């Protein structure tokens, strides 16, 4: 929301100017924003305990793979 438009929103008044850094990066065309469904957000592995199937799925996404020693 704030990343793409910088209109005044009543409910985001208190959000610090510092965080409008994101808005700047988007405007300069360096960064793009995309929506990802919660079920595919790999960063969940860092903030909440996950059930086994999801944990395994995310471990693979992170690039952690089993490599046998030769």
């Amino acid at each position, binding site marked *: *929301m*704030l*990343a793409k438009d910088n209109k005044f929103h009543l*409910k*985001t008044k*208190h*959000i610090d100017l*510092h*965080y409008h*850094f*994101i808005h700047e*990066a988007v405007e*300069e*065309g*360096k*960064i*793009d*924003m*995309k*929506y*990802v*469904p*919660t079920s*595919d*957000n*790999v*960063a*969940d*592995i*860092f*903030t*909440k*305990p996950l059930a086994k199937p999801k*944990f395994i799925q*995310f*471990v693979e*996404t*992170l*690039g*952690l*793979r*089993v*490599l*046998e*020693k030769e």
Partner: protein
Amino acid sequence: MPYSEAIGSVLWLVVISRPDAVYAVRTLSQFIQNPGLAHREALKHVISYLGITKNLWLTFGGNIETMVKGYFDSDWASQQHRNLILGFLLHFSHGVMSWSLKKQNVIALSSTETEYIAQTHVVKEAVGYEILSVKCKGRKKKGSPYCVIMKARSC
């Protein structure tokens, strides 16, 4: 088993190559001052998990993707201290290249605000990888984005 030394050694592992255990180690490392029995038991579990899965290697490659992908998540006041916890990672070509988990010394007023704070951290990290993406021809032309931040909510 001396608790703080054990935490120290697993902390090294999760910073170097095992992002999958970051959450557990970070949680346990908050109790270094005065660990209880439950924390020691949990730490033993973490160590045995790391031992069993020692064949997991941090890898890159496969189909080459040239865009850097950033993921982040924030945790708002779920714990007693009510501080904000944020985690993010940068993903490049089927492997994670940078990750971080932080407890911030701020108490956010809304979950939207926590998302912005977390997003700022991932963008800060991502701008540092501009050169990498130029070398890997990730940027089609100057002024086009080289990094996609994936956000779980439309904020």
